[in-house]
């Protein structure tokens, strides 16, 4: 690694960790309807939204009503997006006159963007009109992230409130999350990207003749605005097919750094938001420490693995460097690996290199990041509520050992909570293992694999893991635009999204209703190094025990077969 590699890593951590406490407090104030420095500007817009929608932001909802509102909103978003994608040839802003998507593809894409996954079985520039990109995908990029944030604050309120019947108002939460939480940051990032050279235009694609004399169509479009939210909202769905490896999507070292940092900027900050909700920032620090530990273990492993030369090239005639195949040469190995680690740790899924080309161990790190349920910072809102589920599992497992009914921040974990936790524990095994097992035995599904042996298995495994974890990054190599994969992956995405959201909201409702026991000497300590270690081990153990055999047949077997 060169000095600029270290500089990139350092700059990345400074950019995401430094503003987090401040940004976290900002999100708390925004979501609780308190006054912030943006209120003079956005306050009137917010009020207008409520007036137009006929919403009283101060009228709170029970967890059931909150959930129903969320489901209704998501369903409506899905139907609209599905229709836009199917019928884009009849809609405006389609300079290339692109036809509508095939229905399973449109279904997959609509599910993918509504669930904040952004799995793409299509190439943006080749199949989507500007209207579909803007009014369809970008809108869902915003509201799917806002949905995650809304679920998170509902859970925070559930934990923080005592003997309460309500969790807040879904419509107000969505409005505030979008208006204050996402729009301003996106505006700043989009302008920055435009400055760096990302196109933002309605102009037709440009025809050019290359130096070899070949005709080439250079696609353009309103890219910067969509890229900003796809990074900040942990969506990851690129404007162009190759995502942030495309020079128009990620033109410079600066754009690379800021897009990279944007992936986990909000997820890191939200951990502090939680601390404000429960009035105990020590909890935030413990959770951040655990996430950071997991991030560093994964990142360190991936970096180490990626700098190992392929043993097949072990010859005195070959100069040994880190393999560059599949990597964006402009950003080098470190730039690509750091992005791969970040995008899979957070449920972003944007890429600036091809994960299919990663060495087996680095590919496994990407898989494990997703398999543990996207809790290492994770998606906007989704990452932290997933992490809090792990916290509750750790507290329940070890909490009995202090001789009391397990409690988290004064809330008892009883049969009902454990039941809901178990439901969320089943999401990844069902979404990944069961769906991948079906694909593994269907000849037509196996035919979509581009490599034989364990690497091909990794391709199938990665697709279902990415879908169920709502990550959306692709390993590549798998021809996934078939009715089978489009529908099965949609199933995985829906399972991975609502298989968490529904139990989490029920959990929030149940916790809110409980009394809060006072915190004292006999309280299970959920801060400090011991708990951080316990939480980290719990996450690795639960994920590891579930997926180790499968990983053994994929990346581990590949690693050993290649002779690393």
């Amino acid at each position, binding site marked *: 690694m060169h000095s600029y590699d270290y500089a990139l890593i350092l700059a990345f951590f400074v950019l995401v960790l430094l503003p987090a406490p401040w940004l976290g407090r900002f999100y708390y104030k925004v979501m609780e309807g308190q006054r912030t420095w943006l209120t003079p500007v956005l306050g009137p817009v917010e009020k207008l939204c409520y007036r137009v929608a006929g919403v009283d932001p101060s009228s709170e909802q029970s967890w059931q009503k909150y959930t129903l509102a969320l489901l209704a909103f998501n369903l409506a978003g899905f139907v609209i997006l599905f229709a836009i994608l199917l019928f884009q040839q009849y809609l405006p802003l389609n300079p290339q006159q692109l036809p509508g998507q095939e229905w399973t593809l449109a279904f997959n894409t609509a599910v993918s963007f509504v669930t904040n996954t952004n799995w793409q079985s299509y190439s943006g520039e080749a199949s989507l009109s500007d209207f579909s990109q803007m009014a369809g995908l970008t809108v869902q990029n915003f509201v799917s992230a806002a949905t995650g944030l809304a679920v998170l604050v509902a859970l925070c309120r559930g934990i923080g409130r*005592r003997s309460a019947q309500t969790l807040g108002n879904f419509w107000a939460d969505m409005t505030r999350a979008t208006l204050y939480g996402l729009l301003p940051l996106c505006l700043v990032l989009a302008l920055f990207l435009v400055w760096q050279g990302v196109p933002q235009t309605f102009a037709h694609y440009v025809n050019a003749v290359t130096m070899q004399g070949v005709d080439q169509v250079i696609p353009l479009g309103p890219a910067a605005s969509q890229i900003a939210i796809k990074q900040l909202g942990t969506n990851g769905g690129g404007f162009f097919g190759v995502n942030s490896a495309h020079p128009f999507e990620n033109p410079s070292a600066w754009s690379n750094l800021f897009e990279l940092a944007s992936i986990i900027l909000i997820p890191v900050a939200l951990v502090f938001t939680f601390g404000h909700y429960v009035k105990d920032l020590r909890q935030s620090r413990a959770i951040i420490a655990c996430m950071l530990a997991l991030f560093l273990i994964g990142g360190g492993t991936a970096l180490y693995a990626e700098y190992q030369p392929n043993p097949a090239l072990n010859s005195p005639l070959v100069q040994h460097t880190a393999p560059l195949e599949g990597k964006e040469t402009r950003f080098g190995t470190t730039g690509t690996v750091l992005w791969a680690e970040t995008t899979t740790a957070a449920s972003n899924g944007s890429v600036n290199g091809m994960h299919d080309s990663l060495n087996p161990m680095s590919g496994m790190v990407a898989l494990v990041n997703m398999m543990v349920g996207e809790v290492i910072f994770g998606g906007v809102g989704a990452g932290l509520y997933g992490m809090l589920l792990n916290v509750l599992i750790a507290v*329940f*497992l*070890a*909490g*009995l*050992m*202090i*001789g*009391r*009914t397990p409690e988290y921040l*004064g809330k008892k974990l*009883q*049969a009902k*909570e*454990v*039941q809901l*936790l*178990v439901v969320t*524990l*089943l999401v990844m095994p*069902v979404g990944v*293992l*069961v769906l*991948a*097992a*079906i694909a*593994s*035995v269907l000849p037509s599904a196996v035919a979509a694999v581009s490599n034989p*042996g*364990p690497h*091909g*298995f990794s391709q*199938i495994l990665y697709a279902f893991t990415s879908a169920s974890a709502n990550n959306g990054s692709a390993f590549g190599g798998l021809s996934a635009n078939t009715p089978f994969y489009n529908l099965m992956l949609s199933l995985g995405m829906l399972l991975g999204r609502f298989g968490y959201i529904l139990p989490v909201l029920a959990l929030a409702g149940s916790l809110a209703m409980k*009394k*809060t*026991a*006072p915190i*004292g*000497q*006999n309280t*299970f*300590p959920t801060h*400090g190094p*011991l708990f951080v270690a*316990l939480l980290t*081990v719990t996450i690795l*153990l639960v994920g*590891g*025990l*579930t997926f*180790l*055999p*499968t990983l*053994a*047949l994929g990346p*581990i*077997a590949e690693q*050993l*077969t290649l002779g690393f």
Partner: protein
Amino acid sequence: MTMPAPVSTLTPTPDAKAPESPKTAFADLWRPALLQAFVKLDPRQLKRSPVMLVVELTAIFTTILCVMPEPAVPTGVAVQIALWLWFTVLFANFAEALAEGRGKARADSLKAGSVGLSARRRTSTGGYEIVPATRLRKGDVVRVEAGEMIPGDGEVIEGIAAVNEAAITGESAPVIRESGGDRSAVTGNTRLVSDWLVVRISANPGESTLDRMIALVEGAKRQKTPNEVALDILLIGLTLIFLIVVVTLQPFAYYAAGSLPMVFLVALLVTLIPTTIGGLLSAIGIAGMDRLVRLNVIAKSGRAVEAAGDVHVLMLDKTGTITFGNRRCTALYASPGVTAKELAEGALLASLADETAEGKSIVEFIRAAQTLPEPPASDFNAVPFTAETRLSGIDFNGRVYRKGAVDSVLAFVGLKRSEVLPALSREIDKIAQSGGTPLLVCAQGRLLGAIHLKDVVKPGIRERFAELRKLGIRTVMVTGDNPLTAAAIAAEAGVDDVLAEATPEKKLARIRHEQNDGRLVAMCGDGANDAPALAQADVGMAMNDGTQAAREAANMVDLDSDPTKLLDVVQIGKELLVTRGALTTFSIANDVAKYFAILPALFASVYPQLGVLNVMHLNSPQSAILSAIVFNALIIVVLIPLALRGVRVQAASAAHLLRRNLLIYGVGGLVVPFIGIKLIDMLLTALHLV
């Protein structure tokens, strides 16, 4: 928590006192338990512990597979795996049966007395008819004569009698039961030794104290406690996850153009699912209840015992719990000009005829200090305490000896409070301020000095409260005393808080207040006016010699009527939870080593390269899988004693307990199976079993 003196009650001493000592030694229990282990193979019984039901199903499946040999698995190995799967279930059943056996032995010895019991029931016309005790219903009125057994739990509505409750409490001295007041409750299967009683039955058959006792220690009928239910759900969830993991392995292997032997997949499933805790969960619960029963405490449900582990606040009556029931003489202060001997003589004579505990304590105190001549009772004229004089004493040899409260004695000798010599006056004030009660002694109208009566705190109680404090439990002393007196005792006993001048309403309000702040409250009580507070408290323990109202309101009854036992109940509640948590952690941590044993063996035919994961260098794929299965079964046996005894809970903060238990059961759970499986593998190989 290492409890001082009262800890001895944890050992089964009450059994020794019981009329027929139940056989609870391992030597007496293992034979029937072994038989029960086979009886419990019945899936209808096993479905109460879903994890073990899954193991039994896989055992049946593997047994069938034994007759359909696969090329990769020698039949001998398959048969051994099937056998060890059956052993796994049997070991778990054995643990449960063993736990049940101890409680049942005790329950049976109690039950024996009730067989064929009949009752004299009052008819609607006012006459009496003889009916079997089993036909008595709540509200029936029965008459019991001397020498008969009381046919059921109830409340005395007429009469007074001595009752021998040894069958239930193990205490052989008869106790008085009478209608009205605080001694009106009687327990079924106890014998009337004098007079007669008319009793209103308060429990239907199956709901009596004895029935509850039996229900708590019988596996098949036992109601699971809330934490047990929650843990069960988690264990079922983990079992489901591992089922998915194992079932999907075959398609994945199929993708890699391989096939995994069924027997090995089954072995993997059983070693992964939490069989250790799943097999011992029931035994832990039963053993915990049995420990309670051996303490002579009857819980109406396991829920209350668990809640005891969770309590934040203990409300303890001062009298009987923190201090001995009565004030005792602890010092004498002579008035200026009076010798110590004169005072002692005067105080002794003034107290000789006093039958109250306080009076006796004065006599004892003086006798212990010096030997003074005591006239026989026939020589003096006893003057008992009356409401008018509020004094007591004797007239002896024409001399008048009196003692009593300060005001009464001063009035008797015709002095005003201000006329008392300053030295004595100061002592009187000091005694009052220290929370004690000053008495004055006079002889022949001359003030001799003061007696210091005080509440004596039970030995060891202060240390015990300190331990509770370490566990984060606050103690609140409840007393009818004035705040000054109460504060002095409180300081001496080391309680955290005091509820002085307590009334039943104040008690209830205090409990509600604590609960509103999210705290769980435990208390004990005996009087009828304690009933609302007992019902309100999260853990209410009534004294067996208390009123029926209190016994019904409480969720626990202490047969020995010893309020300090509330502390032991808290201890048992905590041990119950810690034991479950520890074994769960251990069970899950074990899986890591099992993966390293089984995965390379399982995939040997598909990807032989995965052999590097065989870090334990187990001999062969067959021996690796068999070793894991054997370890999985044997670890249950090894942990049976721990499950039955319970994990000790020391007096320490939650953070300390967590660190210690995580180290022992978490890290231990990771390391032990690596060693165990390796040893078993070496043994199996040496014996040529694989």
